[in-house]
């Protein structure tokens, strides 16, 4: 069958601190097929951004990848040296960040910053790079591309700036686009436009790893979704099936906390307790203390991922059971 764009298996990232190390990403495995949008969702601090940065090789010291494998179309990124990795970044593999206000260099015109991405990976003249930049601007729906490319980041709106970021990422037609909460800082209308853009890119064959804490966005956009909790993927599966038949108590809790039109007037469920501090994870299943079904086995060991139905994997001994 066709080559998967991205295969992450047993990825682990650890940070040494004076109170013993901690692992923001702990034994994570997921796959992104070609032309598929995979969602990575979870509360802030669950490790979803760290996973994205691990793929891009942008982990800042003192943290480093201490285990697992990341295959981009069969190539193991962790085995590459700095130079080889650099030739991939922005070329085969691209990323868009959360806050467009601060993600662009304030003293360089936006057009120049996109040209830079081209000139880094394509041996073309400056003139050609300019032409491609304007074309990229038009692709992402930026009107008056010529005038916009000469202006500075602080002269553009949030939405426009995010479009520039996407243009910058897409200009070298990367195999995989990682989007780290691209719409969080935007208003609803901008958000819809950006999501529409993402769908168009997917239709043109780009695989996307979409990171967000907003379940609504994930539901609209993603084909396949992984729910992360405390550095591990609690449950992953086809988006529709996951939203309709969540089996992991955490996923259920999350969905219960989302208000939606068809459940008007019902009490919103909340998950008791709070996310454990990075360094002090409880023994056994990390969600144990907050889980209604928690028992001896849960406290004993951390559940291994089980495939309860094709493509639907969950880390829970009591998956699917309903608390009494």
């Amino acid at each position, binding site marked *: 069958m066709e080559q998967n764009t991205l295969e992450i298996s047993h990825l682990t990232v650890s940070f040494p601190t004076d109170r013993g190390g901690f692992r923001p990403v702990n034994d994570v495995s997921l796959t992104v097929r070609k032309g598929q949008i995979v969602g990575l969702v979870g509360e802030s601090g669950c490790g979803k951004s760290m996973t994205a940065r691990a793929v*891009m090789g*942008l982990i800042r010291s003192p943290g480093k990848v201490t285990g697992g494998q990341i295959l981009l179309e069969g190539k193991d990124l962790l085995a590459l040296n*700095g130079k080889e990795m*650099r*030739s*991939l*970044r*922005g*070329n085969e593999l*691209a*990323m868009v*960040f959360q*806050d467009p206000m*601060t*993600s*662009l*260099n*304030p*003293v*360089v015109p936006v057009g120049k*910053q996109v040209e*830079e*991405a081209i000139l*880094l*990976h394509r041996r073309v003249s400056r003139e050609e790079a300019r032409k491609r930049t304007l074309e990229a601007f038009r692709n992402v729906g930026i009107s008056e591309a010529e005038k916009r490319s000469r202006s*500075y980041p*602080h*002269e553009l709106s949030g939405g426009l700036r995010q479009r520039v*970021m996407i243009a*910058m*990422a897409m200009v070298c037609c990367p195999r995989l686009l990682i989007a780290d909460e691209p719409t969080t800082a935007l208003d609803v209308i901008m958000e819809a436009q950006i999501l529409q853009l993402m769908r168009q890119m997917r239709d043109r064959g780009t695989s996307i790893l979409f990171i967000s804490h907003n379940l609504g966005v994930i539901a609209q956009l993603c084909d396949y979704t992984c729910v992360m909790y405390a550095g591990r993927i609690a449950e992953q599966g086809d988006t529709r099936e996951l939203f309709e038949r969540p089996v992991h108590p955490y996923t259920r809790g999350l969905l219960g906390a989302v208000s939606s039109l068809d459940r008007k007037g019902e009490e919103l469920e909340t998950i008791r307790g709070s996310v454990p501090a990075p360094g002090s994870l409880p023994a056994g299943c990390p969600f144990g203390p907050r889980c209604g079904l928690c028992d001896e086995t849960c406290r004993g060991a951390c559940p291994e991922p089980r495939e309860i139905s094709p493509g639907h994997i969950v880390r829970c001994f009591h998956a699917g059971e309903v608390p009494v």
Partner: protein
Amino acid sequence: MKKKLLSRLGQSLIALLGVALLLFLMLRVVPGNPAAVMMGEHGDNAAIARMTAELGLDQPILTQFFRYIGDCFTGNFGTSYSLSKPVAELMGGAFLNTLWLALAAALFAWILGIACGVIAAVRKNGILDHLFMGVSLMGVSIPVFLTAMILQYFIAFRLHWLPIAGMDGWKSFILPAIALGWNSAGSVARLVRSTLLDILQEDYIDTARAKGRSQLGVLVFHALRNAMLPVVTMMALQLSGLLSGAVITETMFSINGIGRLAVQAISGRDIPLLQGTVLFSTAVVILGNLGADLLYTVLDPRIRKGGGPQ
């Protein structure tokens, strides 16, 4: 932009006038009658009185003031009391030496300062970081005349690498530049380091790396360009400070600069020379500050279009 420039120039002129006024008042308050100083040990009171009249110091304050302001505007500061040479000629020669010394010191300070600052930031908390920051603190904590003396003794006297003092050829400006520049190098290094450390945390650095830029590429094209903004302002201020004369370095290295001339003028109560040197170096400093502000607006587009902090 034009309007802002004009208002800044106007304000600089007012500041210059303020300095001229302050100087005039000071000279009336400072004890020691210029005529008496000129006559020296042997002068008797009769000769001093005659000299005072000759210099016009016995006229009412107001007439002296208007004559003084007239001189300031027409730029003729007359002839120096003690050296009986035209002040403009004395200052011309002296400023050239100060200019060479200032440029040499600035060049040394900036090259060393930026290099150390960048390395210290990149190797944060490494050996080089502590070494460079320690050396820059040393620069701040040793008086200039001591640094000068140590340099002269070891490099010039013991090793004969460079001339001890004097102004023959460019080689005699190396040691003074190091002595004078070390202090400025220290502050540049510290500023570059702290600004760079701030900027390396910014998101657009991640964007640049995500684009495939190498660590060096990120540093030079993105980080340094932004880190330079406050640093360039500090450098402009430092340069204008250096241009107004470095009395101690000039004295230690026997360089006939504006600073030494000014100190000689005030000790000898040589009013025309003092007016000339002070107004000249003040004008240089004010132009320096003006230059620093303009440079900042040119470099930082965020300010160029909008109002922004002045």
